[in-house]
């Protein structure tokens, strides 16, 4: 029977510990939990806020597609992805990936794979609001994000 990943796209913050707990509660077969949280940086004080635009409907669908691919490639016991949209301030969480498996390698690799794919394939766009109150620019893609995909 196929494992059903938890996927949520939401405006409000999330609790990484609670999401990990939900995947491990009452289980005795899990030997590894990897929890990755991506946070909003202030870029050395330059940034006041990130505004994340997303494509409602496609965001969930695309994360689901990458999650299914992840489950085909690694023997996971559980998988959760939460991605926020809307205004996010420095220090706040943006994205969460939780993977559980019997042994650590699968959980580590699967979480990295998912994050690499979300960076370039999940329909989200970050706009900067600068500390002086000025509207900043749209965040550009980074060449290293494209390169990160090549290893999979």
């Amino acid at each position, binding site marked *: 029977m196929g494992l059903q990943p938890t996927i949520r796209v939401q405006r409000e913050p999330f609790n990484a510990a609670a999401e990990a707990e939900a995947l491990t509660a009452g289980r005795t077969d899990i030997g590894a939990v990897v929890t990755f949280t*991506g946070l909003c940086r202030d870029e050395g004080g330059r940034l006041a806020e990130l505004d994340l*635009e997303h*494509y409602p*409907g*496609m965001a969930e*669908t*695309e994360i689901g597609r990458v999650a299914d691919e992840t489950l085909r490639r690694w023997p996971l016991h559980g998988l959760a992805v939460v*991605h926020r949209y809307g205004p996010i301030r420095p220090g706040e969480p*943006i*994205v969460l990936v939780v993977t559980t498996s019997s042994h650590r390698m699968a959980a580590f690799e699967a979480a990295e794979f998912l*994050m690499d794919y*979300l*960076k*370039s*394939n*999940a*329909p*989200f*766009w*970050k*706009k900067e609001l600068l500390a002086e109150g000025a509207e900043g620019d*749209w*965040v*550009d*893609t980074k060449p290293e994000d494209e390169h990160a995909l090549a290893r999979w």
Partner: protein
Amino acid sequence: MRALYFAWVRERIGKAEEELTPPPEVTTIGGMIDWLKTRGEEYAYAFENARSIRAAIDRAHVKHDAPISGAREVAFFPPMTGG
């Protein structure tokens, strides 16, 4: 079909979505971008560098040579910065 625009494509065009009926000779995403460019300065600006435009048909990523026949929803946007 419904056309959706996101991020700086949306800002440059000045709208998030609209109903479009491309002429019959427009058969692919790339053809649609060329056609959209002729619809006004704001479109020409949004699509000035067609290579940097990503697209989706009915909420799935597609390349510029993808056929648009039967598409209900076509979206145009910059490279994504998720995660």
